[in-house]
């Protein structure tokens, strides 16, 4: 083969991003297509646990060993995405001693450093643990930001010449002469970074090899190619707390069960989760009792959760897979291992392999294996380097400098920015102009927002996952519009408006599951601010209704004119002229 072999990867989750980086670093012409934003599927809907392997140490030791191995790798290559919080498996008095011992033995058998702590020691570490806990096992669990991780992988891939297309949904898998030769995608707004309102296009992308890394969507993708991929999507709920009640990952030490983990994630804690099989990975019920279950059950470990504020809940679907004929009834019993399905061997359809199962912690290992497989198929001899070369942002960054002084930022803001940006801090925060804070809850400055816009176009949800802006306790009440404002002057008003709406709606999607108590107050304030100060509940510019510009008065010249022809101050018509059909009410009339 004289030309550089080309590979197309479908799916912009952790696996797909990991694969495209790996392939690009091996010198291949790699392209990634993703129907939404990066992390759109399962990756963006997980609890952010960097497994030590402890969770699988009893039930699935093969997975546990992979986890601890990759845990160590990610600490090095993705240091700016990882917070090594440590983890605890906490035993309550009603939990089995046998299982505790099995867990401890299992960890040791898998090479996972594990240490038994007395209740007092565990409570010294995490003072909000329940007073009646029995003891705990300490393991090297951590927290990982899946958004940052994917974005960094994709950025690295691009640096190595890869093409990344988000908002490019595969509408057909191209099969010629019984072989997969590429896909047809529908670009939401043309190729390249996204711009709202730009008309969509379709494109046929041909490649020497196609990798289906669509996780829970692998079955749907397989269907387009005419093959069966038996993924069994299983949903799980995750509830986000407003603050960190714990700074260590807290697991319940008992056999599988719902609501058994609390992961400190950035400024929040994430409670998880459930495991329930669903038909369609995009259409399943999100129910209130699932959220209640998280809070009620996990309050047994950390009682203060009962009265703590949640800011939103979200659901994810695991891309579980088991080989045909295994017939496991309960989804919690399905293995967390991953599988390569070579459709040539399996279905006599050369040119494509699907990768299913697995978990975020082992994304790199999965990517390495499938990249090896692709290389073998294409006769390429190239070494995997992803375990050694740090991701952009995680390069040597041993000295945290005094960012407040250097960039004129207040210390918690400088510190949080540096924690997010890692070795890119200098490059992003050094700016000539003023650098105000755009998102106060998460301490995100204008410079970081602008850097994200550069990377992702007018898509404010993409800006959100890159920066965490709008992910704090006000859920965008104070910053959605400021973020949209940063799109100017590059993008015009109509684009900024649509981007703003998309972000605003996305925020409501999760916040609606937290509408009681203090988050309800927050939501009402958000609604009032956006409705009353930005007219979001009935702006003619939004609704498409004609604005009667003639009804505005013409300025100070007519002040004192008592002919009764001038309009009221907000530009609407006077109440006595108001036709009921125009809608709206005025409290002052």
């Amino acid at each position, binding site marked *: 083969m004289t030309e550089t072999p080309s590979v197309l990867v479908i799916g912009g989750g952790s696996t797909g991003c990991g694969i495209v980086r790996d392939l690009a670093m091996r010198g291949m012409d790699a392209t990634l297509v993703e129907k939404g934003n990066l992390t759109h599927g399962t990756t963006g809907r997980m609890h952010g646990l960097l497994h030590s392997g402890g969770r699988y140490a009893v039930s699935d030791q093969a997975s546990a060993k992979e986890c601890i191995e990759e845990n160590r790798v990610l600490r090095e290559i993705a240091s700016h995405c990882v*917070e090594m919080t440590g983890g605890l498996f906490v035993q309550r008095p009603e939990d089995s001693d046998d299982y505790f011992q099995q867990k401890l033995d299992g960890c040791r058998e898998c090479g996972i450093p594990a240490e*038994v*702590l*007395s209740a*007092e*020691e565990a409570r*010294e*570490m995490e*003072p909000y643990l329940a007073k009646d806990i029995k*003891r705990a096992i300490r393991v090297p669990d951590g927290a990982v930001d899946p958004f940052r991780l994917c974005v960094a992988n994709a950025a690295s891939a691009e640096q190595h010449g890869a093409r990344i297309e988000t908002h490019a949904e595969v509408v057909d898998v191209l099969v010629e002469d019984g072989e997969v030769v590429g896909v047809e995608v529908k670009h939401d707004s043309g190729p390249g970074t996204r711009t709202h309102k730009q008309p969509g296009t379709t494109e046929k992308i041909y490649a020497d090899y196609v990798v289906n890394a669509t996780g829970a969507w692998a079955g749907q993708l397989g269907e387009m190619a005419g093959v069966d991929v038996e993924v069994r999507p299983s949903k799980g709920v995750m509830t986000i707390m*407003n*603050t*960190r*009640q714990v*700074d260590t990952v807290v697991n319940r030490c008992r056999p599988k069960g719902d609501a058994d983990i609390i992961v400190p994630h950035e*400024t929040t804690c994430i409670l998880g989760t459930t495991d329930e099989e669903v038909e369609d990975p995009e259409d399943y019920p999100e129910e209130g009792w699932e959220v209640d279950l998280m809070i009620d059950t996990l309050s047994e470990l950390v009682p*203060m959760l009962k009265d*703590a*504020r949640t800011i939103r809940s979200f659901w994810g679907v695991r891309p579980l897979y088991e080989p045909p004929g295994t017939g496991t009834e309960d989804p919690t019993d399905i293995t967390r291992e991953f599988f390569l399905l070579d459709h040539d061997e399996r279905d006599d359809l050369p040119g494509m392999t699907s990768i299913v199962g697995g978990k975020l912690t082992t994304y790199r290992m999965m990517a390495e294996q499938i990249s090896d497989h692709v290389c073998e198929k294409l006769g390429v001899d190239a070494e995997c380097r992803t375990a050694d070369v740090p991701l952009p942002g995680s390069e040597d960054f041993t000295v945290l400098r005094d960012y*407040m002084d250097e960039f004129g930022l*207040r*210390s*918690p*803001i400088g*510190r*949080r920015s540096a924690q997010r940006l890692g070795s890119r801090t200098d490059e992003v925060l050094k700016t000539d102009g003023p650098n105000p804070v755009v998102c*106060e*809850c*998460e*301490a995100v400055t204008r410079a970081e927002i602008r850097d994200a816009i550069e990377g992702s176009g007018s898509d404010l949800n993409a800006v959100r996952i890159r920066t965490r802006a709008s992910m*704090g*306790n*006000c859920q965008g*009440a*104070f910053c959605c519009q400021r973020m949209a404002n940063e799109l100017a002057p590059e993008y015009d008003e109509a684009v900024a408006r649509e981007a703003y709406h998309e972000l605003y709606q996305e925020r409501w999607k999760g916040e609606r599951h937290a509408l009681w108590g*203090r988050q309800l*107050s*927050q939501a009402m*304030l958000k609604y009032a601010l956006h409705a009353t100060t930005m007219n979001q509940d009935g702006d003619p510019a939004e609704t498409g209704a004609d604005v009667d510009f003639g009804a505005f008065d013409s300025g100070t010249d007519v002040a004192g004119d008592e002919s009764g022809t001038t309009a009221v101050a907000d530009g609407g018509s006077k109440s006595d002229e108001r036709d009921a059909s125009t809608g709206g009410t005025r409290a002052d009339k």
Partner: protein
Amino acid sequence: MSDAENVNDNLNEFEPVQVFPESEDMDLRPGADNCYKCTTCDTACPVAEVDDKFPGPKFQGPEQWRLKRKEDEGVDDSIMSCSNCMRCDDACPSSVPLSQMHNTARGEYVEEQMDKLSREYIRNRILANYNTLAMLGSKVPRLTNFVMGNSLVQKVNAKVLGITGEREFPEFAEQTFREWWEERGGPQVRSEEKRVAYFHGCYSNYNTPEVGKAMVRVFEQFGYEVVVPKQRCSGTPMFANGMLDDAKRAAGINVENFTGLIPEGYDIIASCTSCSMSLRQEYPELFDIDGIEDLSTHTYEALEYLRIHEDLHGAIEDAEVSEQAFAYHAPCHARNQGLDRQAVELFRDLDGVTIQDVGDSCSGISGTYGWKEEKYDTSMAIGEEMFDHMHHAEGNVGMTECPTCSMQMNHGTGYEIRHPLQLLEEALV
């Protein structure tokens, strides 16, 4: 049994001795749950109003705490620009523990980030420990007053210590309140039912004993047995300067000396609204000392206590004083205790008295804050509104419960400033 197993078995009985020292620190992150960012606190903050560089109580409190990770150090230095007026507490519609967050953050900042040899630290330590300074100074009051009034000394204070030379140092009384108390032989009234323990604080002991005397005479007039236990500074200036260790020591002594009296039927009365604020709110919020909650629930401001337990209003309506007019300023700490209207409501019905509330602005001095050279201008800018309203009020005498507000009122207008207890004494005793 292998060594490893041995270790595990022993661990079950092992009682850790402070393995993780930081777990002693106060974690106020959950307090951020109450904040829905309405920003009312920022609009109520007198410092933010005049100083654009100050990020305001919402940032200092819930935002900064929420952004903390456990191991993070690095409280923003702007916390030192908070004057601890605590108006944000009063403004918050959602019970965010703002001043507790500020006090704790300030303590952490001073403890971990401030250079202990810096001029700022030394100056703040001196100001925060005014009681020590005053104790020494009042041993030779005339000499101290002479020396402190010397313009050369003021220049030295400004240059060397960073204490503003713009203000005149408060004069020490020639006889302290406690000396007077000893001399008169302690309580003149004995009662089994009506008993109060007086927390005079530093200022009415060393500088304005007439306020303390008025308190004693008024309470005795109503038949109360007044006792005056040994006491230290309430801690207010120490909180405001982040000297939490000093404050804790003082609080320990105060709690010990006062709580023992509670079972004997004594309530604790302060004549300074910052002292009562400290005992009531800051003590239990910041310290875990035996009996501190008990002290908190039994502490009252003097006028407040009489209005609750006596027909003070009736007594005032029957009384009469010579014609006089007051420009009354409610201290921020009085406002936080819901006491901002009590003097006006009471004295407007006293024959001979015209009293006018000069509005709800902060006086700007906030204890030691306005004494700092770099804060002086901010302090005076905040006070501007109050000075203006005082000038517009009838007469040229001011009234307030707070000693440092009274310094500021006097400094900004030249008015003589009196304490409500003094007028009460004049009317009733």
